[in-house]
């Protein structure tokens, strides 16, 4: 076997991952492991290894519920053939390897910087000198937006090539949010520091990233969490999904000037995040998820409040949603705006909601279930239009689904177990992968430990890493005035991408 197939949250000895010659490694991953939309790359990264670079590629097979891992040792001075030439889903992963280590891919179509990390190979590459795509023509013009935008949002630069009002091409330049998180995971040795880091990767996905980390850590320590812990994590993930989807529907209403929808969805989000505060003292769930324990057991009183919250929420949510999705002025802005076709979505390897809105059945809760999702028997909600409407509609439907899941989870709530925190140690010379379906899509954390069980490498992939390109494709041939609604309909993470 030239690869090893593992399940989500498995820990394996690093030596059990087959090391292939680069050409065989390339052939395996681009030709045999990815054959249909049911297989996609969840992570592909490199790290320093005895003066050379070890690259590990993780291809998830959704039908078999397995992740196929293979590796190779490469030399930074070598010139290599790229995976991307054969399959575009590897495009950004290879750019990252190029940026971090200077590996030269001779046939990569778009070998540009990704995030200008502090430890990049080429220190002369500056964020202010990003090589934007240009079209020489007297008829066309460029529009540059950012890094600082009009609202209270994170920084990123958007460069449009326009023909009048029409967008021909959009290039998105990121990296402004780079905080060196992956390196800090290695340097900060206390478990609480690492959990705090995970909580601060992306503040709109606190539960998702923290669950990804603690699931990974517990697996690495051969610690099996109780159903009580899993249940609390699943509840937190679904609450986070409801909160952010609701906030996004509010923002989408703002962008099409439907003021009432904006206000109502905005205020509907408040009790959901306030519930997190009642539960764990923080509106965005910071402090809630911990490895091996739960500081905030769900009391009967809290469960009662959650039941009431869902009932109250649902009534007003249905009322305003019925109005939103039947208002001609809203539909005129949503429908056929910002289309990503199924072919495009598959070609660039989008994940999460951004894949499901284009007809791709891709959802970790279904294909590689973690926590209590195997019991919920989750079925992904699929749309086919790939437009703003589909993204709005999926949010609405996913909120309904999350409410049902929460009711089911409350109904079958396991007994709270007080767990003795015996601080187990991570296994030495091991590799662990943790996949979580956050509201935005698939989050992947990978860890490699050395012979003392210390973290040797920590790799984080936010769904935005795949999906920013989907936004760039979505706006092509749209009016530039539709950019805000397209952007908001994806609501991608800058900090999750930049790390």
């Amino acid at each position, binding site marked *: 076997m030239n690869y090893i197939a593992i399940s989500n949250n498995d820990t394996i000895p690093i030596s059990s991952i087959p090391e292939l010659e680069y050409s065989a490694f390339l052939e395996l991953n681009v030709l045999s492991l990815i054959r249909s939309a049911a297989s996609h790359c969840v992570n592909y990264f490199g790290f320093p290894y005895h003066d050379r670079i070890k690259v590990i590629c993780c291809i998830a097979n959704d039908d078999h519920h397995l992740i196929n891992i293979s590796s190779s040792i490469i030399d930074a001075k070598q010139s290599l053939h790229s995976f991307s030439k054969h399959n575009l889903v590897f495009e950004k992963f290879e750019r990252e390897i190029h940026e971090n280590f200077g590996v030269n891919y001779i046939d990569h179509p778009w070998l540009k910087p990704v995030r200008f990390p502090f430890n990049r190979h080429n220190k002369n590459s500056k964020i202010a000198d990003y090589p934007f795509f240009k079209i020489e023509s007297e008829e066309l013009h460029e529009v540059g937006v950012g890094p600082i935008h009009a609202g209270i949002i994170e920084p990123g630069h958007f460069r449009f090539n326009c023909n009048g009002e029409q967008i021909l091409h959009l290039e998105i330049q990121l990296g402004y949010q780079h905080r060196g998180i992956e390196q800090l995971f290695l340097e900060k040795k206390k478990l609480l520091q690492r959990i705090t880091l995970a909580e601060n990767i992306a503040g709109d996905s606190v539960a998702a990233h923290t669950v990804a980390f603690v699931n990974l850590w517990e697996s690495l320590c051969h610690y099996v969490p109780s159903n009580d812990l899993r249940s609390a994590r699943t509840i937190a993930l679904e609450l986070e999904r409801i909160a952010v989807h609701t906030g996004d529907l509010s923002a989408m209403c703002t962008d099409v000037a439907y003021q009432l929808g904006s206000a109502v969805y905005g*205020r509907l989000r408040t009790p959901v995040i306030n519930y997190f505060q009642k539960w764990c003292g923080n509106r965005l769930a910071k402090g809630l998820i911990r490895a091996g324990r739960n500081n905030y057991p769900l009391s009967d009183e809290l469960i009662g409040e959650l039941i009431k919250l869902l009932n109250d929420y649902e009534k007003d949510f249905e009322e305003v949603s019925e109005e939103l999705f039947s208002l001609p002025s809203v539909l005129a802005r949503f429908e056929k705006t910002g289309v990503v076709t199924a072919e495009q979505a598959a070609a660039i390897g989008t994940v999460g909601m951004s894949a499901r809105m284009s007809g791709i059945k891709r959802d970790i809760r279904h294909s590689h279930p973690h926590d209590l999702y195997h019991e919920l028997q989750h079925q992904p909600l699929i749309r086919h239009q790939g437009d703003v409407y589909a993204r709005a509609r999926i949010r609405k439907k996913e909120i309904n689904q999350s409410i049902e899941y929460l009711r089911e989870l409350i109904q079958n709530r396991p007994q709270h177990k007080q767990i003795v925190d015996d601080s187990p140690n991570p296994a030495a010379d091991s590799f662990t992968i943790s996949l979580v379906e956050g509201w935005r899509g698939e989050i992947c954390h990978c860890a490699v430990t050395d012979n003392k069980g210390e973290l040797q490498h920590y790799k984080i992939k936010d769904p935005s890493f795949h999906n920013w390109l989907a936004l760039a494709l979505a706006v092509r041939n749209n009016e530039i005035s539709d950019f805000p609604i397209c952007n908001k309909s994806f609501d991608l993470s800058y900090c999750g991408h930049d790390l």
Partner: protein
Amino acid sequence: MLDNLRILLHQGKQYIPDVTTAQVPGIFRGRPVISTEKINEDALAEICPTNAISTSPVRIDLGKCTFCGECAFAFPEKIKFTTDHKIATNERQRLVIKEGDEKMVEVNPGQIRKEISEYFSGSLKLREVSAGGDNSCELELNACGNVNFDMGRFGIEFVASPRHADGIVITGPITENMAQPLQICYDAIPDPKIIILAGTDAISGGIFDGSPALNRSFLYKYKIDLYVPGNPVHPLTFINGVLELIRKRK
């Protein structure tokens, strides 16, 4: 039209009538109170992920604290986080809570620049810059303007252009890659202008303190007018802090 009116009617009143006296629902980790109980201080300080706790006497620096509450779980007889959300101040030192100290964290009127009360007491327009912020403080600053908190009623608003702004609100630990855009934005704001640091990351770097990917030199150049702690800041902390800053006088 009628449907919309019906929806409007069904919302009832959502705004908080008086944000200056409003309480936060449920448990909340606001201003901590540290007792004079004798405990193993080194073990206590060791817990903190951001070195916010120092010893002899025990102190918690709210500018570094991530409000995770783990110290209070380990030493409940020593540390309690109260639900007091009014923890913004214009003095960095005031963010350090000592054992036995039960005083409120307040804006010191003696330290408020004259221009602030002169020009901004009835209207304050702010430009927000996220410089490595994780989008949590950004979400909460957006929430300040929603129908619940409605900060706009005090004439305090976030604006798109620095040219229209009276000051800057910084979130995030300030990354190297955002250092220059932040400076350009600040320079574009007309004088007189204020600087507000929102959130633990902005005030001290938080969990990112010491990362080589940061460049916090901007902060050494100017006087900071308001520190708003939190991870993220609570909208009530922010609104009350800013109100104190523009309304309090010597």
